[in-house]
Structures are given as C-alpha cells and as structure tokens.
C-alpha cells in the first residue's frame, strides 16, 4: 500500500519530463500543474467538472484535472498544451484553429487543442458524431462551437 498521514512524494511524467513533487492529500492535479509546475494553460473554470477548461491528458485520456487528487498520480503521465509546443501536431492544430477562427476569448482553447491532439493520436478516424460527443465535455461561451468542430474535423482529416 502507498499513502501516508502527512505529505506525499509523487513522481509523475509531465510533458515528457519526470517531475517530483511533495503534495498534501487535498491537492488536486489542477493545483499542482498550475501552482507548482507553472503550467497555466490548465484553466481554472468551474472546479465542478462541468466546463472542461482544466482538461489534461492523463495517461493518454482527456480528463478534468479539477476532479483528480495529485496523490494518485504517482507513476502516471500528464500532457498539457505546453508539452505540444514545437510538434508537427501542434503546427497543424494551430493552422486549422486559426483558419477556422476557432476561438474568441481563448479560455477554452487549451482544452480543445488537447482534444484535437488526442483525436489525431488516438482517434484519427473519428466520425463527426464521435467528435461531437467528445466535444460535449468542454464548454465554450464564445464561439457557438461550429468553428471549433470544423477545426477538429480538419485536424484529423489528413492524419
């Protein structure tokens, strides 16, 4: 069994690098990423699991980091938008998001960019329905989604 009465030592891979953090039992993944590791692309929206702006890839799956305790992340892998910088995928995502005007204020954009990346890596053959279903997890208060959905479709159309 692992665990303790006090602080917990957690080793996790973040954006390809092994990181070690000491966390209190009540620290959430969103707190660790933003405050300890400085990854501010992970947005703090509702903290209630509704808005999805805190989305990260956690062991390869998109999850809402406001509902994960960092203590459980020992040995796990986390990817945020910062980790995509300079990659071919990110170049393509930037292009399709810009071309489609798939953002206004940009608050939801890191989450949708991670979703685009996940679709390219894991579900390059996703149907329009599957893209829509995955997109349901993230709220955008500005665009009305049409442009974002189009960008997501184009992101995987030539992978």
């Amino acid at each position, binding site marked *: *069994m*692992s*665990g*303790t*009465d*006090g602080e*917990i030592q957690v080793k996790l891979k973040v954006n390809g690098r092994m990181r070690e953090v000491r966390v*209190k*039992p*009540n*620290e*959430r993944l969103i707190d660790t990423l933003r405050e300890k590791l400085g990854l501010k692309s992970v947005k*703090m929206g509702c*903290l*209630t*699991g*509704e808005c*999805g702006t805190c*989305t990260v890839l956690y062991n390869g*799956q*998109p*999850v*809402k980091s*406001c*509902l*994960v*305790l960092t*203590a*459980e992340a020992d040995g796990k892998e986390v990817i945020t938008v910062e980790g995509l910088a300079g990659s071919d995928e990110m170049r393509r995502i930037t292009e399709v998001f810009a071309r489609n005007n798939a953002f206004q204020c940009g608050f939801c954009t890191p989450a949708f960019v991670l979703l685009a990346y996940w679709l390219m890596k894991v579900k390059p053959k996703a149907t329009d329905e599957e893209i829509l*279903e*995955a997109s*349901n*997890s*993230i709220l955008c208060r500005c665009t009305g989604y049409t442009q974002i959905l189009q960008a997501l479709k184009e992101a995987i159309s030539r992978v």
Partner: protein
Amino acid sequence: MKVESPLTFRTTLPELEGYFRPKSLDEALSLLSELGERAKIYAGGTDLLIDMRLRNIGNKVVVDIKEINELRGIREEGDSIFIGATTTIHEIKTSSLIASRLPLLKQVVERFADQFIRTRATVGGNLCNASPAADTPLALLIYGSEVEIASVAGRKRVPIKDFFKGVKRTILAPGELVTGVRVPVPQGRQRVKYLRFDRSSEDLMIVGIAGAVFEGREPGDFEFSLSYGAVAPTPLLFKGLQDAYKRGGADEVLKIVKEKVSPISDVRASKEYRMHLVEVGTRLIIKELLGGV
C-alpha cells in the same frame, strides 16, 4: 449538487490528514475498519471532490480504491454479470457483453455525463453517492441486481432496491465497501427503453424513466417494469406492472406510479414540470414497448 453564490464560491479542498492507496481488498478493509468514520472512499472522485470543496462532508482521510484489481472489470458468471465497483462508466458503455446482455444498462450509460467524466466516474461511486438523479440505478433496479458489500466482518449481498435510504444515504456502515454489482441476465427476449429528460446532454437528468418488457416462456406472457429517477428521495422501481397494463393500459399504470412519486422543485425544474414529464414519459415508453396507450 448545491448552487453556489459567486460571493461564497470556494476554490480549495478542505485540509485532509491522509491519503491511502491499498493494493488489495483485505488491506482496504482493515484500513477502513481502523479509520472508521474518519475515512472516505475515493473512486473516480467526480462526486467526492465536489462534495469536499463545498464542505458537504468532513471526513479527514481518503482511501483510494482504484488500484485494487479485484474491484475492476465486467465478467459473466453463470446467469449473471458481475460489474466491479471501480469499473468506469466508459468501460460499461464500450463493453460488448453489456450491449448484448444488458441493453437497458447500455442505453442508460450512453446518456451519462460527458466523455471525460465517464472516463473517471465509476459504477460503485454512482451507487454509493446515492443521488436521486443517478442514472445507473434505473437500469440496475429493473434487472433485479444485487449490491455486493464487504467489510472485515465478511461479505453480503443486498438487493439494490433495499440499498438506497434517502438523498445521498445508503445502508452502508463505516468500514463497509461496495465490491461490485451482480446483474441477473434475463433469459428470454427483452425490449427496453430509457427516456432521459435533461437541459443539456452533460447535465444531470430532470427526470429519467427506464422501462423493460421481459418475455416469458408462454406466448403473451411477459413482465413489465418501470423505474424513475429524480422524482423521489431515492430512485423508484415498479415491478410487475403487466397486470395493471392489461387491466387499464397506461392510465392504470400511471395511477400506481403517481401514488409513489413526490418530485421537488429545484434549479433544474419545478415539481409540476417533473409530474408532467412522468405522465408524458410513461405514456411514451408504454407506447414504444407495448404498443397501446
């Protein structure tokens, strides 16, 4: 879920004294027995972390059960299917065994939250959280499932209809853990339908109604059941409605149902609207499953 005023919105979780991640069920049970009321079980966290942040619960130690292998997975065992407590809603939704044997459960999890939440949310958490608006109990009730419970004192099975005690209350005592749910597979043909009224696809239901017709051995012999979510402090089950239906169609069924439902008004809908949905939804399900109205 409480509605928060922006002025009192809390952003942090309360202080905790410990976090434990047992690797076996025995370890977990002795830990839970030792910690008693101080402990709270942590599965997907999609209810727990919100309740902690809102200060709805004051437990000081979390026991993470996600690394206990025996609590995970979907298996066929004789005439029933066992679903381990930490099996995620996503795993249930994508299981071919569930799709072919328990189509009502499949329909129910298809309407559950959103994809990112389903990746984390577990069926054990959905049952133990005991929300009147939980989705999975509606299918599990109709199939006549049993909840499997373990503690240092031993193991027991409880019919799911006896598991819920009220809003956010179950029969579980401190030290007890749900290991999974056993669902009997109907032996004959089944026709099923889930109707979920909601504000948006990822929101909790306003009202949920599940219906099933299980055909018997003799032609014309069938059992008809309905279950309702978010219209009473616990999910409601009505079994053996076929006689009422044969006697007086949907009107007769609704008479029985309306005696038990007691919806409230909340952020999602008024009680009058919920009653309206019970009426309309019940008629729609009866029409689809049995043809008559």
